[in-house]
């Protein structure tokens, strides 16, 4: 079983991360990119050629040919694709957010559980060495009792379907709440209890929120502030964005800046300064871990339930955006 080549398929390249996942599979010894399906056949064929693999015009044919599928479609399309994988008993790693509603996420979790296949949520930030060392420090009590956490996952506006509610399910709050929600939930092993949120469209011509601010309470009483805004200016900012946490505990403060390992490049032709990241390839580490779990028949390293926890916070945040009061999560 340990020598087996794991056959991986990718369902949809609507999400840009699919490129990174395809690269990762191609780099991994012990995994092969068997094929790509895409609701957009032209796009699917283009990427199949680019990544040296087969384009499947029929999703079920791809599912029949592989050991695991990675779903990288637009947010609202996660559910039908995951349900299709479950129906074919194919373990599935799904882009974040797992779903655009808690009900959809629960349906996906149940379908995969019934089919007896792993459902994973793609949260690559868990593979950051800084996140892991912070988790060790917090869980070993180095900060004492945690009091308040400042979190950010700011970014540039991705455009395309991200700005179309019928495909994305929401804007910056939908897109960028979940990474921080997941690492906080993982480090403190805790769900969210309540959240107050603002959201607005302040930067771009789009129907969805392109900025927001959350002030959440974990079930253990800890306060989390979370900035998910697409606030980085697209043409001029030196990088795509960030993931940061600053944790204040009774015994001290710890802060992480996950994507801070950069060489700074100024180039007269490009004009915009560029931060060239030399840190770990977190997508590669995540895909490697996923393939190992599939090969060894182990549970998903990051589960559907983990994905649901983050979606629950997003759902409550959007309720608070409407009510202008804190809302209970779940």
């Amino acid at each position, binding site marked *: 079983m340990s020598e087996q080549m794991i056959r991986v398929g990718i369902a949809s390249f609507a999400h840009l991360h699919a490129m990174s996942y395809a690269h990762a599979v191609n780099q991994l010894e012990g995994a092969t990119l068997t094929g790509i399906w895409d609701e957009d056949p032209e796009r699917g064929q283009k990427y199949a050629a680019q990544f040296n693999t087969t384009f499947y015009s029929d999703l079920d044919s791809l599912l029949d040919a592989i050991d695991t599928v990675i779903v990288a479609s637009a947010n609202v399309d996660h559910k039908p694709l995951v349900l299709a994988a479950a129906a074919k008993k194919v373990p599935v790693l799904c882009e974040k957010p797992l779903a655009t509603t808690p009900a959809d996420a629960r349906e996906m979790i149940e379908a995969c559980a019934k089919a007896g296949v792993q459902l994973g949520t793609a949260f690559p930030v868990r*593979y*950051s*060495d*800084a996140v*892991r*060392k*912070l988790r*060790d*420090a917090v869980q*070993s009590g*180095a*900060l004492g009792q945690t009091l308040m956490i400042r979190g950010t996952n700011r970014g540039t506006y991705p455009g395309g379907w991200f700005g179309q509610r019928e495909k994305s399910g929401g804007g910056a709050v939908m897109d960028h709440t979940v990474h921080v929600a997941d690492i906080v939930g993982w480090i403190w092993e805790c769900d969210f209890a309540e959240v107050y949120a603002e959201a607005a469209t302040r930067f771009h011509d789009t129907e969805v929120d392109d900025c927001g601010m959350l002030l959440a309470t974990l079930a253990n009483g800890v306060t989390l502030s979370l900035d998910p805004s697409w606030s980085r200016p697209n043409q001029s900012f030196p990088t795509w964005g960030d993931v940061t946490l600053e944790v204040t505990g009774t*015994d*001290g*403060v*710890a*802060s*992480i*800046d*996950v994507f*801070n*390992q*950069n*060489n*700074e*490049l*100024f*180039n*007269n*032709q*490009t004009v915009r300064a560029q931060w*060239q990241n*030399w*840190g*770990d390839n977190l997508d590669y*580490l995540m895909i490697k871990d996923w393939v190992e779990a599939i090969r060894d028949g182990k549970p998903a390293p990051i589960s559907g339930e983990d994905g649901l926890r983050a979606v629950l916070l997003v759902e409550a945040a959007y309720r608070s955006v409407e009510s202008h009061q804190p809302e209970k999560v779940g």
Partner: protein
Amino acid sequence: MRFGMIGAGGMARVHASVLNNIPGAEVVAFADPQMPPAGRELAQQLGADILTSPEELLARSDIDAVVVAVPTDLHCDLVVQAARAGKHVMCEKPLARTVEQGERMLQEVEKAGVKLAVGHVVRYFPEYAAANASVARGDVGVPGVIRATRGGAFPARPGGWFGDFARSGGVVLDVMIHELDWLIWTFGAVERVYARGLLNAGLPNKDMAMAVLRFRSGAIGYVEATWARPSGFYTSFEIAGSGGLLRSNNQNTGTLQFSLFPNPDGTPRPAPRGAYLHDEPYTVQMRDIVRWFKGGPEPRTSAADGLEALKLALAIIESIGTGKAISFAS
């Protein structure tokens, strides 16, 4: 591949721990006439034999390769002995204490038909490797002025050899040589150098040097190395070219920081483990070396590269001593 460690001091223990985590490599013995307690402890942890003499270690037929991690002035004799015993050698930087020793080492390994790797690990630090690739790609155009600094506190240890210039070559041969190797790798051969430093200032437990380089390409370099800071470890580089500028420093690329209150009794709280990368550079370097020893491709630094860096470092020391610039024949 079975390794014997010649030396059980700081760097030897780093390499032994790294080897222990590389599949297909193991540490079977340590030899150090002054076995420090930490070395003994590690040897016991790894299940490695504890020997007192390198001769004893080199006589063992069950050892395929050795790591030489001993004071600089002892590199030559030990590497020559290891070569004559038919063992591949990983030798810590600098290659040797004198050019004559370095040349002799290269001749002996060639004669013996064994491989000699030199531990110029900065080529494996991702910010430096990324900068090398960035320059090669033309991101800054034609390089014009390069600045590079490295250093921190004086490595004072009881019975330490770093402060003995005859043995260590001081901060230039021990610290600056990291930059010199990276500079030659990235910008090519050096034509001329002028340097000043604290070598002859008669200050115990302090050393520092500044060198101005002229590359054959016409670019200008400024290199600084210090053992005169109170604490900490600082590295930086800046590459200015006709089309752009690339820079990085280790003070603003950290990913995890702690600030802890003291213990109730006033004693400082120990800092938890820091974060860096999933695969740190000493591991990546040693993986390359093990792969080479087993018949794979060469690592990033060759023994000849080690000799070039050594020649430049010794010229800098000479310039500091004589007050004269030194030119190299082409």
